[in-house]
């Protein structure tokens, strides 16, 4: 196990380097630069501005400088938000996004798994169709529809919640629901499908033959295997939560990192793009590793892999 973890962490280094390099190339290929404005500045002024940020150097020199500062842990200043360093922006905003994502994931799992399990157990009956119908609603309502809808009902309508912000604890609920219901629906469907797959397998029949109570059969054996595709989905779900959080953060005015993750590309804020991309990449790699470890624990047969 430790062997695997160490190896994956080591593999992360070339992966991150590749990500950094590809992003660097993509950014400089894209038309438009960080200092293009509606009222363009005279070329001499533009040259001066670019000199401050080293953008006038040949590309390979810029790349070396960029790698160098990266290795020293210096993510540089934001090009767009003068006065702010990239690491400041990330350290101020990320905890918020993390909390939002955490609640959303909790809701998604807390709603999705039970619904999926019950639906599978009620296979062929009306209850299953009803539950899956409810789950479908979560899929058909993207975050930019669900958010305003929830706000319309619970904030403008009933007045139970603030329409935006992240100051009091109750501010968490609507955004977390908006983000979480979507993923909850996916998880419900995957859980149900996974359970239906495994309910027929031999070892379930064996457990039944042994006379264990139905509940134990379901919970212990089927659930573990059924959750397998769900766990696999958690990796991409995290990535989705990250990019999806941008929309929720905009609707609810939450000071998270999503806004910078997306807008930095539009602003050609090279340093901020790089900082956010690498930051998230680290999390994605770690989370994927965690997910793989869980999968291995769940299915001991795959343990002697790699």
């Amino acid at each position, binding site marked *: 196990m430790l062997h695997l973890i160490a190896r994956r962490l080591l*593999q992360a280094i070339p*992966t991150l380097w590749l*990500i950094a390099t*590809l*992003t660097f190339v*993509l*950014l400089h*290929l*894209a*038309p438009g630069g960080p200092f293009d404005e509606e009222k363009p500045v005279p070329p001499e002024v533009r040259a001066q501005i670019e000199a401050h940020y080293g953008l006038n150097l040949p590309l390979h020199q810029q790349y070396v400088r960029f790698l160098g500062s990266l290795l020293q842990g210096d993510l540089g200043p934001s090009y767009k938000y003068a006065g702010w360093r990239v690491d400041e922006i990330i350290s101020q905003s990320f905890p918020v996004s993390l909390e939002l994502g955490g609640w959303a994931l909790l809701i998604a799992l807390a709603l999705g798994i039970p619904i999926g399990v019950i639906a599978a157990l009620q296979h062929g009956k009306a209850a299953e*169709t009803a539950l*899956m*119908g409810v789950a*479908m*609603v979560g*899929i*058909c309502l*993207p975050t*930019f*529809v669900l958010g*305003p*809808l929830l706000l*319309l009902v619970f904030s*403008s309508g009933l007045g139970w919640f603030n329409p935006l912000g992240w100051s009091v604890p109750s501010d968490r609920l609507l955004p977390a629901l908006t983000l979480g219901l979507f993923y909850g629906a*996916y998880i419900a*469907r*995957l859980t149900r*499908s*996974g359970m*239906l*797959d495994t309910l*027929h*397998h031999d070892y379930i029949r064996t457990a039944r033959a042994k006379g264990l109570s139905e509940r134990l059969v379901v919970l212990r054996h089927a659930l573990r295997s059924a959750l*397998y*595709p769900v*766990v*696999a*989905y958690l*990796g*991409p779900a995290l*990535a989705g939560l990250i*990019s999806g959080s941008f929309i929720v953060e905009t609707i609810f005015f939450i000071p998270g990192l999503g806004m910078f*993750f*997306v807008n930095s*590309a*539009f602003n050609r804020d090279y340093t901020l*793009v790089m900082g956010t*991309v*690498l930051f*998230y*990449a680290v999390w*994605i*790699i770690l989370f*994927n590793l965690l997910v793989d470890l869980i*999968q291995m624990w769940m*299915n001991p*047969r*795959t343990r002697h*892999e*790699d």
Partner: protein
Amino acid sequence: MRTKHTRESAASEARSLERDAWERLCRNRMARIGGLVFAAICLLCLIGPLLSPHTYATTNLAYGAQPPSWQHWFGTDDLGRDILVRTLVGGRISIGVGFTATAVALIIGVAYGMLAGYAGGRTESIMMRCVDTLYALPFTIIVILLTVLIEDGGIYLIFLAIGAVEWLTMARIVRGQTKALRRLSFVDAARVNGVNTARILRRHILPNLLGPVIVYTTLTIPAVILLESVISFLGLGVQPPMSSWGTLIHSGSLKIDVYPWQLIFPGLFFSLTIFSLNFIGDGLRDALDPQDGK
């Protein structure tokens, strides 16, 4: 002699399996309903606009944002265009893009994931690290680049961009499933017996992947349809006056409390399509379930 016999019976066995699956699918009530609804929607989208007195592009500025009426069954948008026609025309784009892009993602993702999961070891590591890398790249920049590099791609570019993103998730799920399946007893047995890899993949692994793959496919289609609206925001998708469900829903979501019909009708079509596709998918899954030997 034994081989020939096995091959023949295997072939007829396969045929009867397929017929069996089809029959089971048709018997599934929800799948039938789903199929009918979906067929109806497709028909409406194809033929409906031809029957309507309005076109999707004609603006009528003085009649902007009117609620549903006899003249305009679904009401009008801000520029006075008929929402019913725009929804139907948009459906053509969205369903087309939805299926094509998902098919692309499906083919690439399943193949990649299956190979990675089955190969294991170093190959799998490298393949999955590639997936991780592609995952982390900023999607926005990639799409922006695509709009610039490929001047006149139009619709086909959308498939490319979306397919390029969605296959990654499919690959991860398929790889996870494959790894689990690979160690199952009958797969081991087949390997020990010297059955070649392609055969194992096709006959043993692939059928058992169908469950999560089908589910995930039916979940990918709505994601693709909505992603298309994000892409057109970047200048890559449908250009006005053409519409798609994604852009209609996005526009409508901004006006949810003032002009709700602008969201409700395209949203309804979108939801019905997704519902019906998912019921079909569920039916498919049930019908093809190799273990479902009742």
